[in-house]
């Protein structure tokens, strides 16, 4: 099973019906994403990137086509089983962080574990370990409103990591951040990827896409290009070149 691709889609399509008109947000997407890959998805607004990410994240169901994830035909899973897959195997990072307001960083990171049936001690321990991994151990009891945007996104990444997922899906994770903070986030994602986690991220910036190994371009719901990144950027190296102290 492990030599098989982590994600495989065949003729994947998603249509939205709005009254009489039909929006074909995604059509005929056939892709394979292997274990340990780092993929950037690019494309103009409305080209179906988020729609594709929602399908990869098992949050949505396609109107046609096949989707295999970790050797399982996703169409055969019921909603509860999909929830289990999301909980155990997928971590989400959003453009707008989506942290619970007035809730401490550590509680935010711990939240997915409430649905994993772990003992409270284990939950706490894991959450604080993940916070430490993104460099926020000393901010564990800060609320989101007391953290910078970059710090909030790092909390969100810690939350995505808390169940050791196979796949991290990040839809424009640097969209709300300045360049330097964006690179910090990319450094964390690169490090995760180096440890074996598959990462798929959506971005509008080609500079950000260079941190990935592979770039898939969407247009009008279809894959238009699928290329290896020739000169891959190293976020950690870039950070040390930035003026001022490192992250």
């Amino acid at each position, binding site marked *: 099973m492990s030599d098989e691709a982590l994600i495989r889609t065949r003729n994947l399509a998603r249509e939205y019906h709005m009254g009489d008109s039909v929006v074909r947000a995604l059509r005929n997407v056939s892709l394979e994403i292997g274990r340990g890959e780092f993929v950037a998805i690019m494309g103009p607004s409305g080209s179906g990137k988020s729609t594709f990410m929602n399908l990869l*994240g098992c*949050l949505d169901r396609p109107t046609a086509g096949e989707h295999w994830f970790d050797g399982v035909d996703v169409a055969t899973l019921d909603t*509860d089983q999909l*929830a289990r897959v*999301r909980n155990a195997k997928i971590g989400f990072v959003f453009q707008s962080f*989506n942290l*619970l307001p007035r809730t401490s960083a550590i509680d935010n990171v711990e939240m997915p574990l*409430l649905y994993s049936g772990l003992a409270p001690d284990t939950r706490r321990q894991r959450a604080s370990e993940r916070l430490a991994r993104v460099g926020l151990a000393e901010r564990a009891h800060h609320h989101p409103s007391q953290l910078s945007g970059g710090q909030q996104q790092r909390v969100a990444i810690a939350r995505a990591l808390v*169940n050791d997922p196979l796949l991290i899906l990040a839809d424009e994770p640097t969209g709300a951040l300045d360049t330097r903070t964006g690179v910090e986030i990319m450094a964390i994602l690169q490090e995760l990827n180096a440890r074996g986690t598959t990462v798929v991220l959506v971005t509008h910036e080609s500079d950000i896409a260079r941190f990935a190994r592979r770039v898939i371009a969407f247009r009008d719901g279809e894959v238009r290009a699928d290329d290896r990144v020739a000169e891959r950027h190293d976020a950690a190296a870039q950070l040390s070149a930035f003026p001022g102290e490192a992250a």
Partner: protein
Amino acid sequence: MNVLANLLVALRALRINVLRSALTMLGIIIGVGAVITMVAVGSGAQDRVSAQIRSLGANLIIVFNASSRDGRARLGAGTTYNLTEEDAEALTLIDGVVLTAPTVRGGAQVVNGADNWWTAIQGVTTDFMAARDWELVAGRAITEEDIRAGAKVVVLGETVAKAVFVNSDPVGSMVRIKNVPFDVVGVLAKKGQNSFGQDQDDVALVPLSTARKRVIGANLQTRPTGVAQILVKLQDGADAKVVEEQVTSSLRQRHNIQPGAEDDFNVRNLSEIMEAREASQRVLSYLLAAVASVSLLVGGIGIMNIMLVSVTERTREIGLRMAVGARRRDILLQFLVEAVTLSLIGGIVGIGIGILASALIANLAGWPTLIEPLSLVLAFGFSGAVGVFFGFYPARKAAQLDPIVALRYE
């Protein structure tokens, strides 16, 4: 996700919005508080009446002399002595009657040196105390010999004993009644007020024969064995209505009253009268409790309203929770637990306020209140049910959100 983790999530959510949570609970608090208070007032009234029935003597029928037609004028009740000791004796033969106690009554001053007290002097037989379920706290009761001999002995009610024996022991002392010296042989146990507010302990018991000779006089000369009233004590479980009818027919026969003519006596079942009064009081307070429970309903609607607002406000949170692995039933449970927690905390605070209000009513207004544990358990359970009932719709609404739409909600 287990219920405990759910409870944790719910409590965190409620703590984040303390003021709103408190305001949401207000309806339940007021509703439960009002119901508890009303039921406590109702139970208190009921309890007091049963205590009064007990103090009167359980299962007691009282036969009085009726005012009789004397020419054209109708005289006041009890001015003639139609009832006699023989009547009392005859009534003991009726099925369901345990004993009867004929009494006479008159007012007199009880004097002990400088202390004196105007009280009701009751001439009684030995069965009187059994009829009234009355005990002694000191000394002895009036005996057959006392009655036969017309002994000048008296058993004092608690109020009289306190009034004329301020510092000394009454039993063994002497008092003067109508200038006749009486030996105090006993003191009655305290009975308190009857349901008409009279002090039942403001009384002195003397032998029936002595009372006739020394205390009351005039009217009895025409009827040497006449009595003012006859207490008829019924067996436990005897049908008071049936016995009343038999008492009436027996007395009519003994008094030679023609069919169609009025009775020259009245039969009263006091416990029945009090039970009827108590029932109407109880109905009234339960009616008020029912009105109060409407505010519980309003409280429930308040919870539903706030939960709906909360679901809308937290749409993104719901989407996020679903994205990270919450199943629909986890979301349902989370919001349901939140609603039930609100209503249960409201219920507990309401119970506290109800207990407090009952105590205040008892102290300030002087109404008796009684809080029964069962009413507290019911109130608690009911407020929980309100939470489930009114929390279900908002919780289901939350659980049915589409995670993608919810995540994008602004």
